[in-house]
């Protein structure tokens, strides 16, 4: 009996609750879309909204490009702005209108008398700058060619030095000492001997002789020989 009474009471209470129910629209995000589902009334908090397999995801995030300009986005990540609900189309249209109208309404203009002339000057400047860049390329090429030619010249000079050495080897060797020993004809005019005081220099650490040093040495050698011949 009690069970029957309880069942009857339950049915009654459910009916009462259903009658009182005033469906309220609540926004639920289901698989990325805002879905409108019926929920329980506020008066009856016992009842909960019933959804078929509800999948609650993170709220929709605005595109990063909307928050910051593209140039800045490359250096640092833009902070996304979380939107709780999508904006209606009418609001968007208003924003666009404002964006279009704003620059005209707020900015100032300067009158230019001969805009075409300025434009021409700017274009001419651009042309000249391009010419400069072209020149730069040409100079780079010329320098490369010059370096190549100088490399060839260096090789040729080295070969000439080698050939000269060989040439000297082929010539008969004779002692040039007798040239220095030959007595000078004008004995009367003898240069006075000047005492030279040698200053001792501190010994410098000897480095390996470079190409320049060797050339200097060979040059001095040749000059010495020339002096003896005179």
């Amino acid at each position, binding site marked *: 009996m009690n069970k029957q009474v309880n069942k009857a009471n339950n049915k009654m209470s459910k009916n009462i609750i259903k009658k009182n129910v005033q469906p309220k629209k609540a926004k639920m995000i289901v698989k990325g879309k805002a879905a409108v589902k019926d929920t329980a009334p506020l008066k009856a908090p016992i009842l909960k909204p019933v959804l078929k397999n509800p999948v609650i995801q993170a709220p929709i995030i605005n595109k990063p490009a909307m928050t910051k300009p593209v140039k800045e986005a490359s250096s640092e990540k833009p902070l996304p702005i979380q939107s709780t609900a999508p904006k209606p189309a009418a609001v968007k249209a208003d924003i666009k209108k404002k964006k279009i109208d704003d620059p005209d309404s707020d900015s100032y203009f300067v009158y230019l008398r001969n805009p075409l002339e300025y434009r021409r000057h700017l274009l001419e400047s651009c042309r000249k*700058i391009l010419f*400069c860049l072209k020149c730069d390329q040409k100079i780079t090429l010329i320098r490369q060619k*010059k370096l190549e030619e100088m490399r060839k*010249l260096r090789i040729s000079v080295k070969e000439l030095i080698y050939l000269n050495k060989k040439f000297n080897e082929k010539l*008969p060797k004779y002692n040039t000492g007798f040239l220095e020993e*030959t007595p000078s004809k004008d004995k009367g005019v003898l240069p006075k001997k000047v005492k030279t005081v040698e200053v001792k220099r501190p010994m410098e650490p000897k480095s390996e002789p470079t190409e320049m040093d060797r050339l200097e040495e060979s040059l001095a050698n040749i000059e010495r020989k020339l002096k003896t011949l005179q």
Partner: protein
Amino acid sequence: MDKNLPVFVKIADYKDVLDVVDVMKQKLKETTQTLGRIKELKIEEDRELQEWEKNIVEVSRRLSFIDSAFFENE
């Protein structure tokens, strides 16, 4: 001994010497040509640099004109 003593060279060595001199002549010719090419390149480079300078002067002149025209009201 006299300075003007004659110098005698062996026949074999003499031929070698002649060959060496021939090669040296050829090399000298090549070197002279290379030097000429380097000189030409240098002249060309100088010309390009002059052109460059001229262009830069022209650009600066035009820019200063534009600058003065744009900011004359200030």
